[in-house]
């Protein structure tokens, strides 16, 4: 990622100022799957043609990706055209002013922790940081404590219910965890254990349950 935001990044962020576009983007992201124009239009409550226009704008900006697939059972002639389906794009969009490159620093620090074999120290620091952050979001009596779902949502994990488990659609450390999975996923587990502890919940609810395409931590 460049330190100076590219035109592409700025255009993408600018696009999301429009409330309809933001709602469409939010719907596609929250679905965690491929979404058709009809589904998106219905969810957001706009006409199909308007949804299509905005969805394609989001594709142009690199926020969404497109694939074509036949939705019905029918194949061959008469099955109709394949539907245009939208999902969140794999890339990242970011802009900071003044320019900051925490990504570079994070990679160097992770490399050093790995070289130094300081996994356990990192895990302890993550647990402390999570616990502190968890305590920080408790309103204090008489307010009700926030749920772990709310806390994780606020931190960008995009939690969703999967049976009795709470899974996390987004890994906030995706670039780093791809390169240092053992280090970063264990760190993330301790961080979420700490968050649970901090809000007065049971830390043991956080477990590693790795899978492609989502965060490796689940809350049971």
């Amino acid at each position, binding site marked *: 990622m460049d330190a100076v935001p590219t035109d592409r990044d700025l255009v993408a962020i600018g696009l999301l100022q429009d409330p309809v576009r933001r709602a469409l983007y939010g719907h596609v992201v929250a679905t965690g799957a491929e979404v058709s124009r009809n589904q998106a239009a219905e969810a957001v409550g706009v006409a199909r043609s308007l949804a299509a226009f905005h969805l394609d704008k989001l594709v142009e900006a690199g926020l969404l990706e497109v694939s074509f697939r036949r939705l019905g059972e029918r194949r061959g002639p008469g099955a109709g055209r394949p539907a245009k389906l939208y999902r969140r794009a794999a890339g990242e969009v970011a802009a900071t002013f003044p320019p900051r490159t925490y990504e570079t620093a994070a990679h160097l620090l992770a490399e050093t922790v790995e070289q130094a074999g300081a*996994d356990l120290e990192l895990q302890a620091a993550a647990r402390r940081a999570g616990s502190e952050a968890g305590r920080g979001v408790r309103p204090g009596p008489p307010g009700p404590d926030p749920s772990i779902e709310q806390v994780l949502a606020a931190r960008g994990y995009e939690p969703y219910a999967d049976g009795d488990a709470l899974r996390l659609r987004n890994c906030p450390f995706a670039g780093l965890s791809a390169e240092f999975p053992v280090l970063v996923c264990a760190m993330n587990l301790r961080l979420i254990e700490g968050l649970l502890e901090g809000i007065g919940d049971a830390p043991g609810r956080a477990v590693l349950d790795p899978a492609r395409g989502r965060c490796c931590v689940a809350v049971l």
Partner: protein
Amino acid sequence: MAAEHLAQVNIATLRAPLDGPELAGFVAELEPINALADASPGFVWRLQTEDGDATAIRPYDDDRIMVNLSVWESFETLRGFVYSTRHLEVMGHRRAWFSRMADPFLALWWVPAGTIPTVAEARRRLELLARQGPGPDAFTFRAPFPRSARR
């Protein structure tokens, strides 16, 4: 089936004896994790004694060093097992069980399908990686080389 399979070796220096309390967590995971590997997509072979694991094999002068040697159908299947199963969680405890090693502790290389690498060969690959850095004859997860790059 691909004509070449991926061999992997990793070594680890025990912080304490295997039968002591410090390593109890590791020992408890041996059987389930090995069973998970055996059942994983792409698994071909792993080094083991009649105990069902390789913990008794100590090929180095420093007999605290254990070796783990296996063969997989592809880079992706090995990576999937290592980082996208419960194996990942177990690896999170590595520093409680094993000392940090200054030299490379993991090496990957391509072998003709149907052949099984020896421990001596695995040692040579680790030494090659230490001497030359990642290359087509000894590489790592972070710096992989495709099959065709071997020749």
